[in-house]
């Protein structure tokens, strides 16, 4: 967007200042409505077990899966529960997957200090060839084998399998299917170019300040203080900025106060205090010019379990004076100008990455959309609030833009569904590592990266 429209006016930078400098008013904010009420927790009670969330997940997704199974394998397919299985009868069963992984970190292994076992170090992937898949429904479970990719799938996915029970008690799978892309939402997007800037992983408070210049460049571009008239007129088309998590760096999470002696840590301040002050100043510059939605991430000062609640406004005193700042939950769902956005800060995708053979973040993002659930591994390996009434992570409607933050690199894909769904899948890269943000055009659901690189001390030219 910036390069083709800005180039012709670049000469303007070398001209003497004009008497009346041109102004570019930012495009008016179209309709905005926040749809993340299911992710906002009111009173929280942790005295429940997680059996409820699995039960409602299965009960909630069962009708959709039964419809898909009938559509795929014929209307006369026998839908059975595990307790009604007959040996050798070809039937279809709907249930939750459970993957038994040998390397899965278990709290029981960690507390086995009496055996003098060193706890397992964190690994990038916990999959092994000997992992097994099991299908569970409300009452029983059965081991699966056959035409099902054990390495690729993760615990917590609701799946419909077609096959028959063997005499050794295992279920031989001939085919399986997921809930598929949810039903489409009507399209009422804008007719002119409107852009939304997606950025994640600002990583403030890290030891090295290299990314700070890039962050300042990003703020300057969005507020129109950078470049000639061409760039400024392009920046005026940005209607919103969404910061998808990890505003603070992982370095702010040091556990010095726990590990070190008290006399060493008494007068020191937590690293996150300084980082949040920096964040406040950056958000102040952005909020004076453009509406900003701030989502918390893995290293941000909010709760750990999904759904993460919004950052508290008392931490951002300067920026929260402006109504353009919106502190939102993770995952976040909103309707901007008729275009439905849904996204997370990336914890769900990186957790699936650890327990599945899928390597590509975009592939995992697409798979979660096809499985009909934002984060199937919660609560097994990803912390989750013990919901009991309904599972808010089930995808009931297809968003127009589905993004995840803190990915290793930028990728995007426009997915076409069978019922006319059009979804733009975007993996927003980590800004502190890649200095790249994404611009999504709401008119035609296209996405382009924008990189703010600077010449560091160790670059060649």
């Amino acid at each position, binding site marked *: 967007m910036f390069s083709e429209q800005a180039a012709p006016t670049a000469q303007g930078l070398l001209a003497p200042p004009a008497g009346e400098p041109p102004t570019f008013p930012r495009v008016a904010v179209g309709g905005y409505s926040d749809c993340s009420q299911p992710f906002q927790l009111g009173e929280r009670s942790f005295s429940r077990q997680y*059996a409820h969330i699995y039960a*409602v997940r299965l009960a*909630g997704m069962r009708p959709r899966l039964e419809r898909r199974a009938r559509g795929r394998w014929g209307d006369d397919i026998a839908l059975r529960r595990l307790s009604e299985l007959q040996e050798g009868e070809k039937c279809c069963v709907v249930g939750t997957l459970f993957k038994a992984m040998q390397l899965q970190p278990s709290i029981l292994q960690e507390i086995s200090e009496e055996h003098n076992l060193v706890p397992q170090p964190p690994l990038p992937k916990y999959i092994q060839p000997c992992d097994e898949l099991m299908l569970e429904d*409300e009452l029983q479970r059965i081991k699966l084998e056959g035409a099902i990719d054990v390495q690729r799938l993760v615990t917590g996915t609701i799946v419909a399998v077609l096959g028959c029970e063997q005499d050794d008690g295992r279920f031989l799978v001939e085919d399986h299917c997921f809930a598929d892309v949810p039903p489409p939402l009507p399209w009422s997007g804008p007719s002119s170019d409107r852009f939304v800037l997606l950025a994640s992983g600002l990583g403030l408070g890290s030891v090295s300040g290299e990314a700070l210049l890039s962050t300042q460049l990003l703020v300057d571009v969005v507020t129109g203080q950078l470049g000639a008239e061409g760039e400024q007129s392009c920046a005026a088309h940005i209607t919103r900025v969404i910061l998808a998590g990890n505003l603070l760096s992982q370095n702010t999470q040091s556990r010095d106060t726990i590990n070190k002696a008290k006399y060493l840590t008494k007068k020191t301040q937590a690293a996150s205090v300084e980082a949040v002050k920096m964040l406040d100043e950056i958000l102040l510059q952005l909020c004076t010019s453009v509406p900003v939605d701030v989502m918390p991430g893995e290293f941000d000062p909010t709760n750990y379990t999904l759904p993460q609640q919004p950052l508290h406004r008392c931490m951002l005193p300067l920026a929260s004076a402006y109504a353009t700042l919106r502190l939102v939950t993770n995952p976040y769902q909103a309707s901007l100008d008729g275009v439905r956005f849904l996204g997370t800060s990336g914890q769900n995708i990186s957790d699936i990455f650890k327990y599945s053979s899928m390597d590509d973040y975009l592939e995992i993002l697409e798979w979660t959309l096809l499985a009909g659930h934002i984060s199937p591994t919660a609560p097994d390996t990803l912390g989750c609030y013990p919901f*009991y*009434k*309904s599972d808010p992570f089930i995808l009931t409607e297809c968003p127009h833009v589905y993004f995840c933050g803190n990915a290793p690199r930028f990728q995007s894909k426009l997915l076409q569904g069978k019922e006319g769904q059009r979804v733009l899948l975007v993996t927003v890269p980590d800004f502190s590592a890649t200095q790249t943000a994404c611009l999504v055009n709401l008119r035609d659901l296209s996405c382009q990266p924008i990189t703010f690189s600077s010449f560091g001390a160790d670059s060649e030219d």
Partner: protein
Amino acid sequence: MEQPRRITDSFPRRRRRGPGRPPGRLKGRKDKDKDKDKDKVQLKVRDCPRAASQPPPDPALMEMLRRFDLSWEYGPCAGITRLQRWERAQELGLSPPGPIRDALLEHRDNPDVTYRWVWDGMGW
């Protein structure tokens, strides 16, 4: 002058069992014991959610509620009140029986009714 009170008066009284009955908590007795206890001791008791004047719930009702707890179609019963479980089943379209809800709303202030049947470890 009232009867001399003993320290053991604050303990719940248990009925003697008949011979041949297995040891364990006698269902339904607990309500009557609590009532008797209140008459004897005139200490300032904590405000019991169930007033002494209300009759104890019908054993048939308790049996129906227990069967509702243990039916697997409506999901797990631990950790949530029966009314929450009934409403969840309703929303998921599992059509739980209506009389259960009426009974739960009628005895809203009785903790034996609102919460699930607790297994206290003593079998019968």
